[in-house]
């Protein structure tokens, strides 16, 4: 690589870091600023706003609700998606192709269209009242997050001679379930970890479903931010900062997992 190329690399990494850090830093500064109007940097820092938010029961409730929904969605998605992806890849190629299309579909279909549809079906007209409860979010996020498991697991599986492994397992008298659990699952575990974190990040960031289907009945962090918008920008900044911190910790965890792959 030439000197020129190295410089370009540095510039790109620098820009990328700036792109990721600047918005977060601005919001965090605003959360802890004493007075910040008409100047480029704030005049001083204070815990005042953070203290006020942490003492607000609405915040604690929203944080709790968000964690319940995000963990719930993550666990349900993982529990139903991982077995399905493995079953499709190892035993049912036609199902696998079908799954491939179904998990990609939400990329092309806007969330608000799906949310409208859920609103029509689960508001009790057909005897099922899910709207207004966390369940519509936990179950509704499954199709949105399925690709986070499907794609990395499929990527991992491409490098694994599945057919041979299953046959070898049969030769030594192992059942299919045991082969899946002991041999295939460990081979895709890193894909699973990445999927879990991406799924969590999606669920804690989601606003459209939360706003249209549940709203104030089970307010999440995103809903609370939207409510606060009418009030002080400082308080909103604290909530957004908390959200950023949670997501950043998660991202760093993924980077650590990915890095360990080479060791």
């Amino acid at each position: 690589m030439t000197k020129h190329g190295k410089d370009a690399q540095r510039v790109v990494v620098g820009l990328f870091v700036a792109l990721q850090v600047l918005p977060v830093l601005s919001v965090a500064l605003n959360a802890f600023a004493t007075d910040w109007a008409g100047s480029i940097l704030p005049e001083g820092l204070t815990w005042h706003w953070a203290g006020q938010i942490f003492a607000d029961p609405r915040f604690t409730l929203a944080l709790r609700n968000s964690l319940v929904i995000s963990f719930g969605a993550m666990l349900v998605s993982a529990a139903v998606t991982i077995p399905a992806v493995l079953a499709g890849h190892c035993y049912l190629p036609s199902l696998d192709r079908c799954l491939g299309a179904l998990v990609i579909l939400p990329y092309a279909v806007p969330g608000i269209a799906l949310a409208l549809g859920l609103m029509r079906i689960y508001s009790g007209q057909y005897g099922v009242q899910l709207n207004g409860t966390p369940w519509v979010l936990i179950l509704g996020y499954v199709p949105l997050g399925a690709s986070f498991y499907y794609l990395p697991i499929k990527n991992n599986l491409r490098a694994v001679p599945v057919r041979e492994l299953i046959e070898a397992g049969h030769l030594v008298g192992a059942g299919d379930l045991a082969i899946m659990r002991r041999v295939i699952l460990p081979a895709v575990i890193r894909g699973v970890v990445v999927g879990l974190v991406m799924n969590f990040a999606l669920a804690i960031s989601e606003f459209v479903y939360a706003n249209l289907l549940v709203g104030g009945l089970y307010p999440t962090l995103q809903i609370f931010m939207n409510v606060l918008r009418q009030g002080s920008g400082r308080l909103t900044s604290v909530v957004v900062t908390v959200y950023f911190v949670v997501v950043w910790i998660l991202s760093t965890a993924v980077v650590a997992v990915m890095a360990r792959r080479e060791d």
Partner: protein
Amino acid sequence: MDGESRAPSLTLPRSGGGQAGTRLGPTMQGLSVRSRVKLCAFLFALPLLAILALFEIAPLLAIAWNSLHDDDGLITLANYAEILGSRFQRSAFVTSVLVSAGSAGLGILIGLPVANILRFMPVRLQQTVLTYANIGSNFTGFPLAFAFIIMFGLSGSFTLLLAKLGIAGHLDIYSTAGLVVVYAYLQVQLAILLLFPSLGAITPEIEEMATMVGASRLKFWWRIGLPILSPSLIGSFILLFANAMGTYATAYALVGGNANLVTLRIGELAAGDVYSDPQLADTLATLLILVLIVPVIVEQALLKRSRP
């Protein structure tokens, strides 16, 4: 796969894909064990299939069905006629398409060079950048809009900084152009993720050969690089376009009802206090999906034709 399944094997049950007909007399027991394994595999996939049917397919069918009915439950195309006949709704589609195409274009223009430089970095650094880009592309909606308001709002730090540096013409993030910039923030990160894998097609050999015949960098990219990448560039553009067309939360948080975007109109018709009209909301949503599905189908057809 098929070649493999014809390899000599013991009479043990084979896992899926094997063509029973090509082997001599699989035992009855072998067959039933194999189909039992398949059935079992299907049962493991069933919960996901059920959830996809109930929470992905059924909602889409519901809005399509609703869009074709009037208040009395009679089949009609009146909803479509009303939307297509309304200048206001048509202009919502035009604005959405412009914002989406603009931000997708910006995403590719910035993301492609970045992804290209990323190719020459150590693998670990690549993975770090890609992972953060992946998570960063989730920074949508309220947090993103709010961060931009603090940076570029009327008294935002960057607005003041730019004014102090004497750079005239500050960015009005509450305008349509502002939406393009905020969307582009996400689009660049998505473009890096989408384009990076496809850049593997440009091997050092190809580049060396181009240098040997005396092609400049610019000429190389124009004549060789971009044509090689064109299928994935088009595919990525369509995905970014669809992503922006469907964006609701970011626009809602940034401009509220002030911009005439399709998604904001849908939200207003679905949950607005004044303008609520479920049938029209469903019709608008169905039209939006059609606008997004058509380019995907065309792209797939073109891909098939180019690879006979």
